[in-house]
């Protein structure tokens, strides 16, 4: 489980958190209740220390930092002493084995808190490393991919300016079309890269506001239809309105990229369909085509930004490595997932999810923070 809120871990450790305090109180109360019940049944006394030890372990594991675990162990020691050992309802520190109980509980609390903190730190580091990797890949892909259209633009322009009037009009027109085509491509590439700058680098998060999924999909498809005649784009949407917190510009970029990917790479596709549905606490977007599908050996590296170096055949295939890795970056920053698969019977399906609830800890949503 990865925490997205409260990026600065060191700060968190000393910050008071209602959630953690509540969890601690709840677990201790449950332990106390259990002990009372056991005492009523009969020989509860032997288990009291065990129950509280377990409670302390649980608190240390579920809260962040050391504070709550240590606090729970202190409360546990006094609680056990006060309520569950003779004399009942009185503190007595001369019991044999008392220091041992105290030290054990404290040690367990510190140990488990430490492990928990370390684990969280590691997850964070892994995520940052992956983001760093993605950026390096992007940069490499960009520098590789920018040169080609720039060379072609400056080349065509210099041919035109030097030979204006000397070459026939058809050839001139072809060169002009090349220039504007490559310029368009550069524009789209730059837009993609600028998208990344909208993502907060430190926290790998975006500014989200609730948006209607249908509006975003409609606009992306409208723009797609302006640029591509085939494959024909369809939209499949349920009657109900699906809202999800997102950075609308970025999600539109993702859908645009996935549609463009289908138009340029789905060989033989006659349609591409965007589907939106709600599943539990997630909005699920799918972009599916009926083309040739994705080569199995490309599937694992599809979103790495390195895919472009594998296909140097078709001239227009060069952009997709970047487009898809931008998609993944955007979706990760939204706390969602992006996957690709081949559909049985031909065609590729890209699917991404967005949490429909803001923040974490929504009881009805289960563990939607998993990655």
């Amino acid at each position, binding site marked *: 489980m990865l925490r997205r809120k409260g990026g600065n871990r060191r700060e968190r450790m000393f910050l008071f958190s209602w959630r953690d305090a509540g969890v601690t109180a709840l677990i201790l109360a449950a332990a106390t209740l259990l002990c009372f019940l056991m005492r009523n049944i009969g020989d509860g006394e032997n288990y009291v220390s065990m129950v509280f030890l377990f409670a302390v372990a649980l608190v240390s594991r579920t809260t962040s930092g050391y504070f709550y675990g240590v606090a729970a162990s202190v409360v546990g020691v006094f609680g056990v002493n006060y309520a569950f050992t003779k004399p009942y309802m009185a503190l007595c520190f001369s019991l044999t084995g008392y220091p041992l109980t105290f030290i054990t509980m404290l040690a367990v609390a510190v140990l488990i808190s430490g492990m928990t903190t370390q684990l969280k730190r590691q997850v964070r580091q892994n995520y940052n490393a992956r983001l760093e990797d993605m950026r390096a890949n992007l940069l490499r892909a960009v520098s590789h991919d920018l040169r080609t259209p720039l060379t072609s633009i400056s080349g065509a322009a210099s041919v035109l300016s030097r030979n204006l009037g000397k070459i026939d009009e058809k050839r001139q027109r072809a060169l002009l079309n090349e220039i504007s085509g490559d310029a368009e491509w550069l*524009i789209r590439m730059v*837009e993609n890269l*600028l*998208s990344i700058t*909208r993502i907060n680098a430190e926290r790998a998060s975006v500014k989200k*506001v*609730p*948006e*209607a999924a*249908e*509006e*975003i*999909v*409609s*606009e992306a*498809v*409208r723009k797609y239809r302006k640029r591509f005649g085939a494959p024909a784009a369809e*939209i499949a*949407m349920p*009657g109900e*309105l699906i*809202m999800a917190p997102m950075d*609308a*510009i970025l999600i*539109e970029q993702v859908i645009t990229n996935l549609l463009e990917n289908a138009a340029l790479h789905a060989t033989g596709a006659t349609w591409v369909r965007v589907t939106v549905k709600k599943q539990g606490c997630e909005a699920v977007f799918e972009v599916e085509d009926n083309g040739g599908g994705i080569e199995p050996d490309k599937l694992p590296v599809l979103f790495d930004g390195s895919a472009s170096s594998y296909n140097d055949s078709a001239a227009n295939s060069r952009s997709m490595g970047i487009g898809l890795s931008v998609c993944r970056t955007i979706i990760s920053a939204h706390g969602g997932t992006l996957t690709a698969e081949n559909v049985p019977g031909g065609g590729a399906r890209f699917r991404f999810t967005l949490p429909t609830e803001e923040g974490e800890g929504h009881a009805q949503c289960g563990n939607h923070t998993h990655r």
Partner: protein
Amino acid sequence: MRNAATILIVEDDERIRNYMRTVLASCDYAVLETGNAKTALSIVASHNPDLVILDLGLPDRDGQELLSEMRQWSRVPVVVISARGLEKDKVTALDNGADDYITKPFGTDELLARIRAALRHGRQRNEGERTVFSGNGLVVDTERRIVRVDGQPIHLTQIEYKIVTLLCRNSGKVLTHDYMIREVWGPFSNCDTQLLRVNMANIRRKIEKDPTMPEYIATEIGVGYRMIEMD
């Protein structure tokens, strides 16, 4: 056909200015141009152009400030040039009195379409208030409170009707979310954009032939909504 309209280009980048001047001149518009805010104000005051194209990033002054100052004494239609991703700037510009915006990088067709629409609004401003709006089969009669699509009467709730008529009265123009909320629910309502979106989704399901591809009310992502031009 001769376009009598005079257009002022306020843009500090010379290449973009050249490009726009060439495009506009080839469409027979009379073109004035400047690269800074100071001259822009004096040209508007002295030449009274029919339209101003304003780049928000000027060297000597904030474009938004220039816009609000100009609005204090001039109602000339203003089309703002802004970049994609800077949706906040567009919203601010619209709130400051801009009539429309165009997103950089833009194509020639888009530029000309925006200019034609803005010029039309400038002319309409001087006509009286209309009560019947129609376009593409949608008819809204504010006097008799009737909304029809292809002759079929459409039943709208009170709020939905308010939204539709607000968009009709400003057809062709982008209305920001906040502006619409203020106009429909009142200036002191603490209504959020979510309610506006829910209402918009319902309106689209009632008036659009294909709600997934709206033809009457377009979404301007991150900014607001725009109704097609209504006659």
